[in-house]
């Protein structure tokens, strides 16, 4: 039995299939950061740290004439988001009901995906993770609210990357507000702004819940590393006569290897 304790949940195979399928379907469009960064793993729940290949000199060796170094690693973080499902609803799944209320799961999915995207772009100081926007070496470009200027800003970001010798194609991550503005906008002649921006970057433009502003990043590979321990899974917490409490969880680390390969858009 795995640490997720799924076998203890009063959920039939049909019920588990529905819950897993719902979570997978909702997560896939929301996990936007994964569309632009390198993904390694999953290495399993026991995977606790990412090797950085570096060391730090240790002070005060126990014996004179001996010196020591300690390996540096980046510890994985665990994210966990609880949610609940009514047992009546789960029993109706087995009766063939199609309109099951999974609102709590959907909200948990939104929170987890938003957190993952936010950590990749804005980092998490307490976890020693620097996000893309923080690590980027180039000066951030102010995106603003005037969509007609976006092509100029994005082109400037691409120029900065090219100037640093960072090859494309490039991807553009935009927070929900900026993304919606882009979708709503057509340029002179009715040409969709979305298509114009895609032509400039040569890659995807990605709706990214959980980030402020956006970023232009190189997609050449090897610059932004997402190291997965256990990929997103659903585990069992407890149940009573009315509801079963479950949770979404994952473990991962993230690091920016090439700070020159991204330009933050604020």
């Amino acid at each position, binding site marked *: 039995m795995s640490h997720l304790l799924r076998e203890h949940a009063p959920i039939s195979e049909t019920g588990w299939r529905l819950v897993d399928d719902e979570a*997978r379907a909702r997560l896939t469009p929301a996990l936007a950061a994964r569309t632009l960064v*390198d993904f390694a793993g999953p290495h399993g729940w026991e995977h606790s740290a990412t090797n950085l290949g570096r060391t730090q000199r240790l002070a005060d060796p126990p014996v004179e004439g001996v010196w020591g170094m300690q390996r540096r690693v980046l510890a994985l973080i665990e994210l966990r988001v609880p949610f609940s499902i009514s047992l009546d609803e789960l029993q109706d799944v087995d009766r063939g009901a199609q309109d099951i209320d999974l609102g709590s799961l959907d909200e948990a999915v939104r929170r987890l995906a938003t957190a993952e995207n936010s950590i990749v772009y804005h980092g998490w100081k307490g976890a020693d993770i620097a996000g893309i926007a923080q690590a980027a070496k180039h000066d951030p470009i102010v995106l603003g609210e005037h969509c007609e200027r976006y092509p100029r800003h994005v082109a400037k970001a691409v120029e900065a990357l090219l100037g640093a010798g960072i090859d494309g194609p490039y991807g553009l991550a935009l927070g929900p507000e900026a993304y919606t503005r882009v979708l709503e906008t057509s340029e002179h002649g009715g040409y969709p702004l979305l298509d114009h921006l895609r032509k400039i970057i040569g890659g995807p433009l990605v709706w990214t819940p959980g980030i402020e502003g956006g970023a232009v990043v190189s997609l050449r590979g090897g610059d932004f590393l997402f190291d997965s321990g256990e990929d997103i899974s659903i585990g069992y917490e407890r149940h009573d006569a009315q509801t079963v409490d479950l949770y979404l969880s994952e473990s991962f680390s993230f690091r920016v290897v090439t700070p020159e390969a991204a330009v933050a858009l604020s």
Partner: protein
Amino acid sequence: MGFDQYHEPADELPEETRTFARLCASLTEEAEAIGWYEQRLALEPDREAQAIMRDAQGEEFKHFSMDLEFLLRRTPLWREIAEGILFKEGDIVEQGEEAEEQAVEGAAARGAPVTGSVSLGIGSLRARSTT
């Protein structure tokens, strides 16, 4: 009644694995029937009997194909490998090796769950961003 399609205790197997095993057994039986009809047709001199057996063999072709399609739909990696082999001209062995290599490497690159994992198997979404 035998339950030969199971190699592990049936009551310990998940429902979907039991269904999968039943369809695998069915696929085998349809292939055997196709082979048997092929042998009978090779020896049968009566044209009317031949026509009946051809019709029966056609049924087995249909059953085999339906079983196969079901199994491929439930097994994405198998489907991906099959897509690199079926309905193509050229060297079957070469295409098989190539399809297997690409499919297995692709699954690993997408972050397909490690064996025994119960994760949702989402992994990398880089491929999605390029479509």
